[in-house]
C-alpha cells in the first residue's frame, strides 16, 4: 500500500516538474520572440549593435554565424553569447567585419564596382538545454564598391603648346578593405595622362600629389578618371580647378 502511495506521489511530482518546465519554456520563448522581432526590425534598418535582454526565466545561449560567399570564396564570423535571466548582452555584427574576413582576391573584383554575394545567417538559441531553435536566412546582396571615397582634382599649371599643358593632380582614395594594395589611375577622354600608381596605407587611405604633362585630345569628350585595382576598373568624373 505504501509503495503505491510513493509511486503515485512520484507520478504527481513528474507532472508538476514537466508542467513547470513547459511553462518556463513557453514564457521564455514568447518573451524572446518579442525581443527578437524588435531586433530583426532594427537590424533591417542598418543597426550593427543590438542589445538583447533575456526577460524569460531560463538561461539563453546564442550562437550566431554569418557566412558570406563572394564567387568561390567564403568567410565566416561567429558570435557566442550567454545571457542569464534578467540580463542583457550586446550583439555586434558589422557587415564590413564579415567582408574583412574574406581573402583579398575575393574582394578585388568588388574594388571599384559592386559584385553579387550571398549572405547566410544562422542563429541558434538554446533555452536552458530544454529547447533549441535554429533560424537560418539566406539572401543575395551586392558587395562594393570598396572604394568608399574617390577625390581627384586637376589644376592646370602652364600651357606648353596647343596640345599639351602642365598640370598638378591631387588624388585621395579611401578603401579600408584594400589596405596594403595598389591602385592605378589615369585621365581619359578630353585629357589624357599616363598611368599613375598609388598605394593604400594600413588604414586604407591613398594620397597622391603629381605634377605632369597632359595631352589635350581632339574633340570635346568629357574628362573622366579611370581607377583600376588589380585589373578591375571604374571611371569617376573629374573636378577641374582644385
Amino acid at each position, binding site marked *: 500500500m505504501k509503495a*503505491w502511495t510513493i*509511486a*503515485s506521489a*512520484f*507520478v504527481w511530482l*513528474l*507532472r508538476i*516538474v*514537466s508542467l513547470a*518546465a*513547459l511553462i518556463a*519554456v513557453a514564457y521564455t520563448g514568447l518573451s524572446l520572440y518579442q525581443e527578437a522581432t524588435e531586433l530583426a526590425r532594427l537590424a533591417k534598418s542598418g543597426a550593427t549593435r543590438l542589445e538583447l535582454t533575456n526577460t524569460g526565466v531560463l538561461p539563453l545561449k546564442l550562437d550566431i554565424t554569418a557566412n558570406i560567399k563572394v564567387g568561390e570564396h567564403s568567410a565566416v564570423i561567429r558570435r557566442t553569447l550567454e545571457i542569464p535571466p534578467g540580463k542583457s548582452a550586446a550583439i555586434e555584427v558589422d557587415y564590413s567585419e564579415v567582408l574583412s574576413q574574406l581573402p583579398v582576391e575575393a574582394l578585388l573584383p568588388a574594388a571599384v564596382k559592386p559584385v553579387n554575394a550571398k549572405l547566410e545567417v544562422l542563429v541558434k538559441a538554446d533555452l536552458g*538545454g*530544454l*529547447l*533549441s*531553435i*535554429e*533560424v*537560418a*536566412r539566406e*539572401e543575395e546582396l551586392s558587395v562594393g564598391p570598396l572604394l568608399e571615397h574617390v577625390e581627384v582634382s586637376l589644376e592646370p599649371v602652364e600651357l606648353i603648346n596647343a596640345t599639351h599643358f602642365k598640370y598638378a593632380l591631387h588624388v585621395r582614395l579611401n578603401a579600408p578593405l584594400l589596405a596594403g594594395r595598389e591602385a592605378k589611375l589615369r585621365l581619359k577622354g578630353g585629357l589624357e595622362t599616363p598611368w599613375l600608381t598609388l598605394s593604400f596605407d594600413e588604414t586604407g587611405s591613398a594620397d597622391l600629389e603629381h605634377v605632369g604633362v597632359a595631352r589635350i585630345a581632339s574633340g570635346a569628350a568629357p574628362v573622366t578618371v579611370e581607377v583600376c585595382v588589380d585589373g578591375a576598373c571604374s571611371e569617376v568624373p573629374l573636378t577641374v580647378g582644385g
Partner: protein
Amino acid sequence: MLVRLLKGVAKALIEFAALYLVPAYIVSVLESPIGLPLYLAPVAALAAVFSGLASALSKPRARLASSASSLVLALYVYLLFEGGVMSFSYQSYSVVVNAKNLLLLMLAPPIASALVDAAKWATGEKEEKEREIEEWE
C-alpha cells in the same frame, strides 16, 4: 451506474476539448506557422475515450483504461512534438525547433502513470484471483 457513465462521457468530452479542440482554436487564432495536424484528432479522441472509461468503469478495469489513456496521451505528446524536431518556414526564415529534452520531460509523467496504473491493475487482478481460489478451496 448512470452517474458514472455520465461522469465518464463528460470527462472524455472535456479531455478531447483540452487535447485537440482548444489547441486547434488557439493555433488558428494566433496564425501560428506550426499547425495542429489532423491525424492528432483520432489520437486525442482515443485518449479521451480511455480516460472516460477510466471514470465510468469500476476497479480494476478502470486502472487498465487509465493506463491505456496515459499511453495514448504519451503517443499524442510525441506526435504533437513531431518526435522532438520540428521544422518550418516563417516569412523568409527557415526554422528548426529541437525540443527532444522537453519532449522527454513531457513524456515522463504519462508513461510513469501508465506503468503505475498497469502495475496496480496487475496486482489487483492477482489478489482477486487468489481470493477466488481460496473461496473455491
